[in-house]
């Protein structure tokens, strides 16, 4: 599993000697059903190597995501039940057949979902309620980390370092805003600070993404490992920088000074105490459109996707593979960095160590969305619900909020095994023709 994402693959994929990204292929039986273009032959191998998630049709993708979600909730219910039996507590939440349970899974999921939306079923619900604002606040950041992972994924690169890139972008953004604020004031500050912060976040994150990019492009170092290692390095180096050079002298916490108001996203419509700005969400949606356009309608996007699907063909077609790897990871890191900038300029108002694991959630968001930028919005919203709902859960019950972390992993696991759902689907629809053909024919989304 060393340095061989498909995009720098020199051996030619037909040998199948470098299977890092091989999606446990059904390529052996399905490719003939593929897109039906004249260059079918050349793309057979491509399809085999394509990450499975990108291979499925939008309909099936949504179905798989939904099934994975339901299944994760089911497993989550079992976990909460078992934990409820094993835990000891003063006042049990549920009594089933004489045995007492500390946690009530249905109440947990009720709080997780309805709570995150601000109880829409209760009377007098308004979309401007504070819990819904918290959900949208989390969604905004998750859109960026989801886009970051998705963009790299489309280029055939596993960027597990979104977390580190977000952390570096966040610190860069905080420092840039604080420094600029010392130079400008008044209206000038109002129009410069936020753009400066966003730009610094993008540059910081982009730089930090470029490191594993260059290592992969020019030294064949596997990006899964280097990006994970760089996450640790980012945490440690930012902690050092803040503690030793940029600490807020008035605070015990390891954090920078608070940004001036002009450097923070203004609260519009929503209560300012929720730390949510609709402007930031709109910015996130604009980035979604931008990334979609970049991937689907520019020659760079075409190169990137080709490098992801079929590196040998891409190189044959004149794509500079190392440069594509480098620029995709840089862009991916920049997206994560903007997410970090928003975390600083909207959520916290300063940089503080111990940033939540938005980057890892971004992996789930991207995988759930089948690496599609538009799908990432929905997946990010779902995860925004989970993250904000977990606070409601820990407020309303004694169930540890880490439950959401478990669900995050379970969802990835279930989405990663579409074959499982196909099997169930086939069992349910016994007698109907094999669905493989219909499945791959929909792969057109990536052509």
């Amino acid at each position, binding site marked *: *599993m060393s340095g*061989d994402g498909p995009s720098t693959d020199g051996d030619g994929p037909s040998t199948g000697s470098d299977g890092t990204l091989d999606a446990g292929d059904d390529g052996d039986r399905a490719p003939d059903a593929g897109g039906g273009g004249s260059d079918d032959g050349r793309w057979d191998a491509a399809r085999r190597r394509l990450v499975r998630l990108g291979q499925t049709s939008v309909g099936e993708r949504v179905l798989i995501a939904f099934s994975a979600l339901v299944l994760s909730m089911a497993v989550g219910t079992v976990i909460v039940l078992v934990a409820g039996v094993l835990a000891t507590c003063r006042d049990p939440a549920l009594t089933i057949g004489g045995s007492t349970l500390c946690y009530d899974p249905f109440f947990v999921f009720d709080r997780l979902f309805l709570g995150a939306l601000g109880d829409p079923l209760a009377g007098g619900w308004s979309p401007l309620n504070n819990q819904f604002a918290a959900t949208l606040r989390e969604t905004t950041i998750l859109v960026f980390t989801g886009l970051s992972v998705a963009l790299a994924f489309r280029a055939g690169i596993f960027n597990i370092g979104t977390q580190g890139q977000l952390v570096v972008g966040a610190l860069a953004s905080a420092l840039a805003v604080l420094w600029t604020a010392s130079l400008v004031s008044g209206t000038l500050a109002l129009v410069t600070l936020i753009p400066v912060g966003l730009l610094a976040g993008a540059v910081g994150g982009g730089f930090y993404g470029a490191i594993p990019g260059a290592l992969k492009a020019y030294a064949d*170092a596997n990006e899964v*490992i280097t990006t994970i*290692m760089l996450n640790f390095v980012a945490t440690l180096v930012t902690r050092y920088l803040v*503690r030793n050079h940029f600490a807020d002298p008035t605070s015990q916490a390891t954090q920078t000074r608070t940004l001036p108001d002009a450097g923070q996203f203004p609260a519009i419509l929503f209560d300012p105490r929720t730390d949510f700005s609709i402007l930031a969400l709109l910015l996130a949606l604009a980035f979604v459109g931008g990334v979609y356009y970049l991937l689907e309608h520019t020659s760079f996007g075409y190169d990137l996707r080709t490098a992801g699907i079929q590196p040998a063909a891409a190189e044959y077609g004149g794509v500079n593979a190392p440069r594509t790897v480098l620029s995709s990871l840089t862009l991916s890191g920049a997206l994560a960095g903007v997410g970090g900038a928003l975390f600083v300029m909207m959520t916290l108002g300063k940089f503080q160590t*111990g940033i939540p694991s938005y980057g890892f959630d971004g992996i789930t968001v991207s995988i759930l969305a089948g690496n599609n930028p538009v799908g990432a919005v929905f997946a990010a919203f779902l995860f925004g619900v989970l993250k904000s709902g977990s606070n409601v859960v820990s407020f309303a019950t004694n169930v540890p909020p880490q439950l959401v*972390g478990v669900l995050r992993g379970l969802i*990835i696991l279930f989405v990663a095994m579409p074959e499982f759902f196909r099997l169930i689907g086939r069992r349910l629809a016994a007698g109907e023709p094999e669905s493989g053909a219909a499945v791959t024919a929909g792969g057109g989304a990536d052509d």
Partner: protein
Amino acid sequence: MTDAGLVNSLRSASGRLLIAGVAGLALLALGVAGLVAPDSTAGRLFFVLASKSTLSATLRLSVPIVFAALGGIFAEKSGVINIGLEGLLIISAFSAIYGADVTGSLWAGFFVGILASTLLAALFAVVCIEFRADQIIAGLAVWLIALGLAPFASSVFYGGPNTTNVGTLDTITIEGLASIPFFGAFFDASPAVHLMLLAVLASWYVLNRTTFGRWVRAAGENPKALDTAGVDVSRVRYAAVLLSGVLSGMGGAALAFNIGQFTGNGPTMVNGKGFIAIVAYLFGNYNPVGALLSTALFAGLDATQLRLQTADVIAVPDSLVQTIPFVAVILVLALVGRTRLPEAAGDHYESGEE
């Protein structure tokens, strides 16, 4: 092997030589400095490095990484890339503590840890082999599940991400031999260290000298031939992945009993050791002894940074010194570049019978 492949393996070989050479030269230079000028920074650094306690710490820190690396070798040799080693370490570290707490016996806890890790590995195996999931994604899922589940369970049972302390394994000390300078560390160590050395030798023997080892290698290199020979490729892969669970379980349990407690904040007490293990076996070229040696490099750096923090030799802030092992892993990966992985690693194999 293609030209590109040849170039790559040459580069890998020269990368390994380069790293070994640089490490050797650095030690030599420090040794000279230590003899010539014992009071210089370099000299004092040498005495820190050459002390018995640094070797002790290196061995102690190596245990979880080596066990996970051995597990990773079996899985990947059989054709299943197990990137979820980190998750296996996390789950076994917690379960071992919980098991020890409930049963009152550390060794019983040790087996509970192994059991938990093996169960999670079994889930991973089913998902990859039966349901043909992408191995990298499934491995990440294993990591993230454990990263959520262990602190969750800890909060359920202990009210927070950190468990209670159940005590540590008693060290085995052989009087006399233990007082040998430097190498005395081998005779004054936790039984986990001896278990690790034993596991390295056993793994080497199993992989290279037994029928099972031959099957594992064939399942990764040429599954078709193995299938033709009448051996069920899936079963061999299941066995190898389960074995990676057992071995990682030993590593996680040993890690937890090293301090007697599971700590589950942030990246948990495992803190990337499972990923370092992957680089260790890649750098060790899938050889158990090689994995031990490359782990010793990373763990040695980690031990040095721990000692530097206490010995006050060089005034570098903790946070920066702590990055040393991670940076070393990145450098090694960049210098070694692509290693030749088993021909069919990452591929799903389906026998013609279906």
